[in-house]
């Protein structure tokens, strides 16, 4: 089918990355960094951002070495076939878990703030099915959708933040950099998981019109995300103060309960922020969902990935309902970031790149420009 032959532009990759990476983590991000580094939480965002940008760039360099191949194929070359298959299977599991967390936290937050009588199951299922529809359309539709939605997420967010400027007390960020460097580094490990998602480039680079531009796209996307995260953390901490940020489960949402738009008909802009956030989670879920489907379809060498979309939905749904309560959700999420997120996002891609360099693999010239990706095998 033609779907998998469609290509995305480098701008679309930037948009996909931004909408993908900004997800559930954003709600608890100010709390997590403040727990680690107190008023210096913003420094963690910068450290995490730099590390993630470097790794994201390495991932695209890795892709450059194997034109027309995604990680599913070249991991077999680099790691031998059985290990490569194992790697891909792990990757699928990683994506599925990620999807499950997106769905679950989405349902929890929505139930807490908006739909307190709608069963979690219904929220999760409707959300998942909508996303499945998106994923079936393939990467080009996702690219176009992301291009449309990213401005619709970022611009209103900053607009709604404007009335809060008067309530921001920047002395909440004092004292500056009194946290020990060691603590900053160990804290940065926690925060890097908020940048997870860039590893999707391992798969998406193949679908670019000009795969060589992927590196540049990542170098644009990651710092933009970092700036957005910085804005969120600084605004949240300066409005609430570090003590309250540490206490509230989703502080980034809480500040919008404090903001009053002067003279507005609706006092609470909380609802608008929720809807922006729903859109951004939708793109995040779709991205990871697509990642899982794509890895599986490339492993099975299917021509059309859309067959696999619906069968995976119950799996995600099942995983998402495993944790008993919101405390358990975050326990699992911590475990997940430690044991799956950091390896699959940071260690393995860098490892693969080092392996490729050690083997002295050189990119084959001129092969990647025209050739449709799905037909390389």
């Amino acid at each position: 089918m033609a779907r998998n032959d469609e290509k995305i532009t480098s701008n679309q990759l930037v948009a996909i990355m931004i909408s993908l990476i900004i997800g559930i983590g954003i709600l608890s991000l100010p709390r997590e960094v403040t727990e680690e580094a107190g008023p210096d939480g913003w420094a963690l965002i910068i450290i995490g951002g730099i590390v993630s940008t470097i790794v994201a760039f390495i991932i695209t360099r890795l892709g450059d070495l194997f034109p027309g191949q995604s990680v599913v194929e070249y991991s077999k070359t680099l790691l031998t076939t059985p290990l490569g298959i194992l790697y891909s299977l792990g990757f699928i599991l990683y994506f599925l878990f990620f999807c499950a967390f997106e769905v679950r936290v989405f349902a929890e937050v929505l139930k807490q703030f908006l739909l307190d009588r709608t069963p979690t199951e219904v929220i999760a299922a409707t959300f998942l099915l909508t996303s499945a529809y998106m994923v079936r359309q393939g990467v080009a539709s996702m690219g176009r959708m992301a291009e449309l939605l990213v401005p619709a997420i970022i611009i209103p967010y900053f607009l709604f933040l404007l009335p809060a400027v008067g309530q921001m007390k920047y002395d909440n960020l004092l004292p500056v950099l009194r946290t020990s460097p060691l603590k900053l580094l160990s804290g940065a490990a926690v925060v890097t998981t908020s940048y997870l998602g860039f590893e999707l480039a391992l798969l998406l680079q193949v679908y670019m019109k000009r795969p060589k531009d992927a590196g540049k796209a990542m170098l644009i996307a990651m710092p933009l995300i970092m700036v957005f995260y910085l804005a969120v953390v600084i605004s949240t901490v300066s409005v609430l103060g570090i003590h309250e940020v540490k206490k509230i489960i989703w502080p980034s949402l809480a500040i919008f309960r404090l903001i009053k738009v002067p003279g507005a008909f609706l006092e609470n802009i909380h609802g608008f922020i929720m809807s922006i956030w729903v859109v951004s989670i939708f793109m995040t879920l779709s991205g990871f969902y697509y990642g899982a489907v794509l890895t599986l379809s490339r492993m099975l060498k299917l021509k059309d990935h859309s067959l696999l979309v619906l069968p995976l939905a119950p799996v995600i749904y099942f995983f998402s309902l495993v944790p008993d309560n919101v405390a358990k959700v975050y326990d699992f999420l911590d475990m997940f970031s430690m044991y799956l997120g950091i390896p699959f996002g940071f260690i393995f891609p860098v490892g693969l790149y080092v392996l490729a360099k050690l083997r002295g693999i050189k990119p084959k010239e001129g092969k990647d420009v025209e050739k449709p990706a799905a037909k390389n095998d």
Partner: protein
Amino acid sequence: MLKNLPRRMTSLVLVIALAAGISGCWDKVEIDDRAFVLALAIDKFEYSEEEKARVEEQGAEEEQQGMTPKEYPADSRRNRIVVSIVYPNVGLLGGKGGLIPEDMKFPMSTVGPDIYECLSQLAISMSKDIFLGHLKAVLVGEGLAADRQLFMEVLDDMDRNSEISRNVYFIVVEGKAQQALFIEPLVEPIIGTYIEKIFETSARSSRFHQKKLGDVLRSLDIHGDALAPRLVMRERELAVAGSCVIKDYRHAGWLGEIETRAVQWIDNMVRGGIITVYVDDIPVPYEITEAGREIKIQHDAGGNLRMHILLKGEGNIVGYKFAEKQELMDDKFIKSIEKAIEEEVVAECTGVMDKLQHQFGVDIWGFSEYLRKYHPEIYDEVGKDWEEIFPEVKMLFSSDIKIRRIGITK
């Protein structure tokens, strides 16, 4: 045409099934089915002596008759707090007229173990869904605020709620909160809006503490201490006046209106107000238009902490005495009035600081937070035992008052 029929039927069934099953909103509530609670009053459940005696008598009587005495309210673990709400007649407010047009609002009250159980008890006698999203004010009775355990429970009930905004006004009532809530004020019929308006329009008087629920909760969260505005009941009106000192999650005492202004000046919160000083026995009202403060902290020779607080103000003289020989339009005279005001301000602040340092022993300004932010090296030294150190800190006040204008006559 007919060939496609089964297919069309299937898609039709599917469309209907999807429309019914997939639309996720199960939470639709019609706006007139909601009771918008604008004010919530919470009191400790207390028995008056006569009632207690009556209940005991009744119990004894029943025991005499060979029955096991019933559990009476005073003995029950469930009767801990009294929650009262008022919700306006939305139909009337919208100009359409409700079912009972003469009633502007509906007050209700019940007794229970916690806020939410009380609300659910209230709900069973109401035809509407209780909604706290538009809550304007929470009134807490003096008795409740004095009970540490209960007070902490109530605070958490509110802190945890996602409906209650942190912009709600949190006020401690001198007396019973329920009584304040059920007053029928002359000026503004609905208590919640009434209180909101007082805060919005009268904050410039600096005569009450201008903090909201979020501020009080934050302060309590950090130190266990806070200053909350106080509500005073009058015949047919309410007054937000002065403040309530909360120490270690418990009501510790009141501060008057002038004291509260001094506290706020030290906290850099004063935006206006009137100070009257006496010059040659003539009262001179001074209107504050701008105020600020500066803090300097150092160790003195003995190694103790010393805080210098400079209170700055700008403003106008708005009254003097008619046909008085001494004209106000005289720089030297203005300077002498400035001096008198400065002395007054320093005296007020010294007084309230002394009270809070030595009588209450509460750092309601959160100076420890100030130290943590601006003087982290001092904070590292004293932060842990700030509670003991605070009363020992030497506080030195000075003031710098400027009179800019004197009105339109000489």
